[in-house]
């Protein structure tokens, strides 16, 4: 039985509003945290829970919190990263849209733990209607004494402000987000100094993803140790997965990270199988940046073991034969899809979103897009495939922020696993305009070395 911690109440009628949310047990974690626990005890509890950042990097949240500098007389800030922009990812939107008070509750507890009196939610500009939903939830929380001055008589003051971005994927990177929050272009900063020391307005700052901060609520309610019992290994708690592409039931699912990838795709409880009775060809399991896997390596690891929906299992085999959990954006491709075309749209995305600061990324992303376009539209050469490989290799690791890596990995993985599809495009330029390469051998059982 799958346990739900975040979305359990998401479909209770009227849960968007304070009265219903409170009646369903909302804001208990604020009472518990502010009245019976100190900031250090909350940080300890989050550490014990094993909660890992849900934005994509998977860094332990409690550890991140413990890095925050506390210089005398300098305000500190918590910033919630709601700039969800990784293609395939729409889980934070779902959480904020359906159960906004859960985020506000998590933000109050987390702000108390970090000593943030002014907390900011930086939300992608396109989610304009969610700004209204969040601002209403904040007003309601304030009217009921959960925000503002001297919360619950503890002397703790806290306000939450919602800031809209304006269309820039790069602002999901925490230092670019901070720049944007300061009213500047979203150019990532060199680290160190890390935001925990010098962040927003040069003050100590923690930036956490929406889902991470919402997860603080069940952690405080049930205790970090109990939370850590859910899931498996270092994949503790539950994870929101946004599933899309060619499946029967696209949507947002909360899983406890013990289910197999196969169950996730084919079970009626989740994706409900591949749409239109087609076969599974490939999948990008953790948002567009993570390596694409052919069906055979997705369902089983290179060792022939079942692959599970958790951090460790999805990355089993490294980039050679595995992928990553990433942001939980699960993109499924059926047998009719063209991996070259798909890679081209992602390369275009990264070219569009590169901030232009570092030349390997600024020049490399545009160059990769151009080459992929040539291959896709029948003007490619075989040497282009090696050239693509070379360019992505020279971007990876050579930029200030991870956007360079994020742009390189999808291209690298597509060539690594689907090289023959690229070659077919080059060798059959006319045919490739009329039909796709198809499923080919990508779902065949893999040969497991004895």
């Amino acid at each position, binding site marked *: 039985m799958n346990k739900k911690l975040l979305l359990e109440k998401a479909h209770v009628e009227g849960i968007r509003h304070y009265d219903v949310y409170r009646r369903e047990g909302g804001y208990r974690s604020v009472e518990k945290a502010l009245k019976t626990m100190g900031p250090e005890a909350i940080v300890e509890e989050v550490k014990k829970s094993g909660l890992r950042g849900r934005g994509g990097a998977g860094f332990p949240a409690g550890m991140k919190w413990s890095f925050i500098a506390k210089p005398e007389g300098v305000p500190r800030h918590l910033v919630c990263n709601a700039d969800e922009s990784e293609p395939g990812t729409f889980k934070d939107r779902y959480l904020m849209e359906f159960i906004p008070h859960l985020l506000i509750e998590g933000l109050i507890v987390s702000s108390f733990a970090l000593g943030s009196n002014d907390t900011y939610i930086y939300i992608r500009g396109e989610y304009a209607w969610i700004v209204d939903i969040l601002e209403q939830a904040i007003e309601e929380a304030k009217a009921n004494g959960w925000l503002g001055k001297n919360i619950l008589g503890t002397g703790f003051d806290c306000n939450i402000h919602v800031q809209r971005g304006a269309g820039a994927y790069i602002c999901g990177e925490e230092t670019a987000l901070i720049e944007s929050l300061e009213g500047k272009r979203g150019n990532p900063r060199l680290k160190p100094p890390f935001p925990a020391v010098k962040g927003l307005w040069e003050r100590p700052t923690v930036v956490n993803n929406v889902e991470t901060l919402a997860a603080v609520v069940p952690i405080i309610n049930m205790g970090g140790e109990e939370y850590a019992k859910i899931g498996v290994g270092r994949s503790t708690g539950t994870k929101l997965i946004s599933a*899309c592409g060619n499946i029967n039931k696209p949507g947002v699912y909360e899983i406890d990270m013990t289910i197999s990838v196969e169950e996730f795709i084919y079970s009626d409880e989740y994706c409900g199988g591949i749409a239109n009775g087609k076969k599974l060809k490939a999948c990008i399991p953790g948002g567009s940046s993570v390596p694409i896997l052919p069906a055979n390596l997705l369902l089983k690891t290179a060792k022939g073991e079942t692959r599970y929906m958790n951090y460790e299992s999805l990355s089993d085999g490294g980039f050679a034969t595995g992928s990553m959990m990433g942001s939980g954006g699960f993109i499924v491709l059926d047998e009719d899809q063209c991996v070259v075309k798909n890679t081209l749209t992602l390369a275009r995305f990264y070219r569009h979103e590169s901030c232009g600061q570092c030349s390997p990324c600024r020049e490399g992303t545009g160059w990769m897009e151009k080459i992929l376009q040539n291959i896709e539209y029948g003007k490619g050469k075989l040497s282009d495939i090696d050239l693509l490989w070379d360019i992505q290799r020279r971007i990876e690791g050579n930029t200030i922020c991870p956007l360079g890596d994020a742009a390189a990995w999808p291209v690298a993985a597509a060539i690594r696993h689907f090289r023959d599809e690229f070659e077919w495009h080059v060798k059959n330029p006319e045919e490739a305009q009329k039909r796709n390469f198809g499923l080919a051998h990508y779902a065949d059982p893999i040969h497991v070395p004895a």
Partner: protein
Amino acid sequence: MTKFNDDQLKEFNRLVARYPQGKQKSALLPVLHLAQDSFGGWLSAATMDYVAELLQIKPIEVYEVATFYSMYNLKPVGKYVFEVCQTGPCMLRGSDNIIDYIKEKLGIDIGQTTTDGLFTLKTVECLGACGYAPMMQMGKTYREHLTKEKVDHIIEECRKNAAANN
């Protein structure tokens, strides 16, 4: 001369009040949204200069931000702007066909505005609606699970609204 009216100024003050004293530049992105919504859906040089003056920053600080973020329009757009997503997950669900259909139906190419000034067609990169693809943004709302019929309906609806407002 473009200037915020009283209601808009009130909103401006609310936005600026969210940041510490002396950090009013932080309000730049939301203020540019407000300006774009208030002055015909785009940001002219005069509008940007006005925003700079209000926030007490240099005009260049506004220009460099306005040109960086994709949601700010730097030239006039139609009354209704269709921003159709074309990234991977939407492409897998047929966004190419939707874009072609809108082009044909409105007789314009990507980036153009219809001669009656009603519609502008743009393509955009992932808007976080991948599970509800294909999709487009229209002002403050998302239109999802697009089909040709749905596109027909939306265009019809826009034309009716525009006629009713004239």
